């Protein structure tokens, strides 16, 4: 929980500094997943990150979507790790499944 609040603080600072910012949040998990529901990742328009949604596995893909969300303002719902094989592809080697919601901070 304190992690999530730390993310909000940094996001607030970025926003106050005039940057475009998005927040990604883990909204559902199945099986073993590295971060619990509610975990957040803040991303600014230069690709800087604060917090985590997976402990490093899927952040790359999430940041890309976050940058798109900052540009077009549309929220996104991302699914990772549908099968063990795909999980391996996106880096969720544990075989867990995680759903991430990405939205721009307005």
């Amino acid at each position, binding site marked *: *929980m*304190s992690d*999530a*609040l730390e993310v*909000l*603080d940094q*996001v*607030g600072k970025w*926003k106050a500094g005039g940057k475009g910012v998005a*927040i990604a*949040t883990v*909204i*559902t998990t199945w099986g073993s997943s590295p971060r*619990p*529901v*509610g975990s957040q990742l803040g991303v600014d328009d230069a690709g800087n990150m604060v917090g985590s949604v997976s402990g490093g596995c899927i952040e790359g893909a999430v940041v890309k979507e976050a940058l798109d969300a900052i540009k077009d303002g549309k*929220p996104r*719902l991302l699914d990772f790790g549908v099968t063990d094989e795909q999980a391996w592809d996106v880096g969720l080697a544990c075989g867990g499944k995680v*759903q991430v*919601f990405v*939205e*721009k*901070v*307005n």
Partner: protein
Amino acid sequence: MKIETLAALQDARAKRRAVTLATRLGDAAEALIYKDGATGPLASDPAIVAAAHGAMAIGRSETVEIGGQKIFLNVYVPPPRLIIVGAVHIAQTLAPMAAMLEFDVTVVDPRGAWATSQRFPGVKVIQDWADEAFQAMGLDVSTAVVTLTHDPKLDDPALESALKSDVFYIGALGSRRTHAKRKERLAEVGITDEMFARVHGPVGLNIGAKSPAEIAVSILGQIVEVRARRIEALSAPKVAAA
């Protein structure tokens, strides 16, 4: 997320106020739901507000489906807090042990000779009467209160205020005899038997604790148990309903 929403979440944390942010995944519409009110476009939906209250009670974020729409409920609850009344010997062991369990610990004692930072390095120490300190701090559902002074002048007002709040745990050091007398005294200020039953006394699990460290373990064991059972109890019917 709106920047105003972010500011409200930060404000809630500073005030140790539990809040749930509900977000409709389709369009990112939001509501901030507190125990005693709600704001934002989704706040007019009683089903969303009710679901948020349920999630907040067990401190667990989750995605729910309401009226065919997916709603994410992100719960922001303040970290559990332990308020120790009485800057006594046992408190010197109890405070650091509770900090290891990630409790936000505060020691309260009006006596200047006891409530010093030398006796409690790295711990928040308030030199004040418990009831006054409680009022300033604001007791909440994620707070535990333990009284350790043995002195009715100090313990009783603390217990009275704690019993009139919704703290999740109240414990009072003292023998069965002391505890029975305490019950009689508090009855005079309007604490009924039913209310008094919330006080764990003699405090702690019965593990034959003798030394201050052992007593601290027994108290913390009980606090951890009460907290876990409460969360379990609140979760069970919710799972069944979902």
